[in-house]
């Protein structure tokens, strides 16, 4: 709460900026939850697969990076929304 009040002072008199600055933080925080769980699960399972079958490690790694790329896109769109809310 202290941080929010500091932000409120920083942009005193401009309620739209305050609302944008606070909600931008929430936007990114919320956007990071799902992809965080997703990437953790994905990499964990990949490590499991590589440990069980080291000879398939190359293929698993490529597929893992692809999966990470798709999952991570959601978090990154959240980050872009954060930037847009905050600075645009």
């Amino acid at each position, binding site marked *: 709460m202290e941080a929010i009040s500091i932000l409120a002072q920083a942009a005193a008199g401009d309620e739209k900026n305050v609302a944008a600055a606070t909600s931008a933080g929430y936007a990114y925080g919320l956007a990071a939850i799902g992809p965080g769980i997703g990437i953790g699960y994905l990499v964990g399972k990949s490590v499991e697969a590589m440990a069980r079958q080291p000879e398939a490690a190359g293929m698993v790694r490529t597929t893992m990076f*692809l999966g990470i790329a798709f999952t991570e*896109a959601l978090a990154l769109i959240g980050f872009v929304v954060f930037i847009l809310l905050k600075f645009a």
Partner: protein
Amino acid sequence: MNVLALKFPEISELLVWKDLFPGFNKIAIISLLAMIIPIVVFMIAASKPAQGAPKGVRNFAESVVEFIQNGVVMQTMGRDGMGWTPFLLSLFCFIYLLNVPGIIPLFQMPATARMAAPMVLALLIWVVFNAVGFKHQGIGYLKSVLFPPGVPKALYILVTPIELISTFLVRPFSLAVRLFANMMAGHILLVTFAVLTDALIGGQLVWQKPIALLPLVMLIFLTGFEVLVAFLQAYIFTILAAVYIGGAAHPEH
């Protein structure tokens, strides 16, 4: 924004550069170098004799080509995708050299942290994979994308709009945003810790100065991390391009 007397620079100060002369700034220099360096390196490598064990520049160039062949083309398109190696190789080198100035002193700015380069590259990939689809399958390409085989007839009401949006709109958008947002996030992260270190060292209070060690260590760690990210993003962009092109050339099998 001014929190606890610590001034964070405006976003435009971090990403917009003054023109050195009209229409030509730091981003343009980086893009130009990223274009020239691979051309020169590969031209020199090609001029060396092909017989015997490769060494020096040719050895380096061959290992890069082999990385693209084994790490990207073979993994996604198989042997008949080998013709795409030159395209994917130049794509990879260009994106990597746009990314890596983010951690090179004096440049300190990844050119892909501006939307222009990722957007143009993503649109290029979009045009290429659609063109490949129409070339290999004719008008049947649209059919294989919009009405994937093996789906119950009634589900097409649901599947077709999803495929339409995800293939033709979300693919180029996510390709561009992934590269752009990753590089910009890294850039802003480095700036944040650099500003924090500077503010703590240059502050009025003496007891604050040792605390500057914490963001400094973090800054060094993140610089190392950015080396990895610059490579990984170039690799992911290339491999996704290969997956899209391979998928358009050979429908579900």
